């Protein structure tokens, strides 16, 4: 587990990620309430048993988050999902992949 600052996200992941060694599992978001969102970028290592590398940060819903799809193309699905389900803003990522106009807005967000 490694805490990072949202501003340093791109640099941290660029310096860490090597496609041949690390496997990007997903970007996980968890609403802790009171406008706090915990984001976890979960990586594992190829050919190593139960070895996780998790970058995490806590941000608010108002921030515009950077995207890591330039480094990891498959992250686009995770990012589009949290845009839809949590209503966060991520640069260059559009919602609408999972929900459409008639769906509830950001359903996984805490109501508090």
């Amino acid at each position, binding site marked *: 587990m490694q805490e990072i600052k949202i501003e340093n996200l791109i640099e941290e992941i660029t310096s860490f990620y090597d*496609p*041949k060694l690390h*496997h*990007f*599992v*997903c970007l*996980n978001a*968890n*609403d802790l309430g009171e406008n706090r969102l915990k984001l*976890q970028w*979960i990586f*594992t*290592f*190829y*050919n*190593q*048993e*139960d070895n*996780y590398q*998790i970058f995490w940060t806590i941000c608010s819903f108002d921030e515009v988050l950077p995207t890591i799809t330039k480094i*990891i*193309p*498959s992250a*686009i*699905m*995770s990012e589009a999902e949290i845009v*839809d*389900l949590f209503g966060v803003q991520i640069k260059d990522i559009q919602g609408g*992949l*999972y*929900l*459409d106009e008639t*769906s509830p807005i950001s*359903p*996984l967000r805490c109501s508090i």
Partner: protein
Amino acid sequence: MKKTITIPLGSQHISLLEPVRFNFSCENEKITDVDYNVGFVHRGIEKACTEKFEYKQVGYVVARVCGLCAITHTMAYTLGIEHILNIKTNKKIDYLRILMLELDRIHSHLLCLAHTAENSGFEGMFMKIMGDRELVMDIQEAISGNRVQFDFVCIGGVNRDISTECEKLAFTNLALLDKKVDDLIGKFTSNWSTALKYKNIGALSYDDAFNFNALGPLARAAGAAIDVRAESSILPYKEVGYKMILGQNGDIYDRNLVRLKEIKNSILMCQNILSGLTEGEILVKFKGKPNGESFTRLEAPRGEIFYYLNANGTNMLQRVRIKTPTFSQIPGMVEIFKGSDYADAPAILASFDPCMSCTAK
């Protein structure tokens, strides 16, 4: 004048099992660009798991994410919650769980092979494989009592013990299936028309397999040794004879062969488990409410499945995150489509074995 034509594949199309839409921009049947939409079956299962169902019931809910890898979803959830509750299962439970997982893998791979054959216009092969698949479906039905939604795994163990009759049935059917798979390998490798349809079609290179985070048979066909069964110690896979199977070219042909060989490996594992099964309890009693978080990875038939669970000491979970194999592979799939013929697109799509209800949840 517009130079490209747009061919839609989906959201309803004969070659699709589940709703997904690909819009292919084609230059005379040569695909140049792909646009996709995957969220047709979003059912809000993650939300339901945290708001409507208690943690003991969630195992049955997540089984409904997907019909084919139902047991894998329940298993991943159960392993995660057992990690939080600190339950230690005995060897017999682990073995029975691997048995069901591998039987599930066999039938899922057979379905994918049948679907690939059907989508390339090979109806005879489709019917043949679907007929053979009944053998393994019968074993699963005899063991669990249900045909599709097994509901076999529960927190702390499994729901049913395996009887001697089931064991006998499993041995005979697996031996039969083993022969049929050998026969299938022969038929897939020595057919002029399938060679035209599968060889060097829809290929994913070794480097791209890593760059696009390919998983499961898709990655292994390209030669990338990516398999959670080898990277996880949560279930004793090495004891039962697991072997990594790799392809070379990453085309449809290799994907089919990797699947067929994995079926053979799975049959071997099932036979090992059945002959080495010991007596023991099938359910471990537990107390308390979950508190904490867990990360679980498991190899579903299609690739890695990941569960993140967060519990806060109540009956309700605070967060359930499901990441399924198709979910992260879609950018890779789109990349493979570019440059191939539209005539091959349904077969390529089927050979990915995409699961849209997994993806949209």
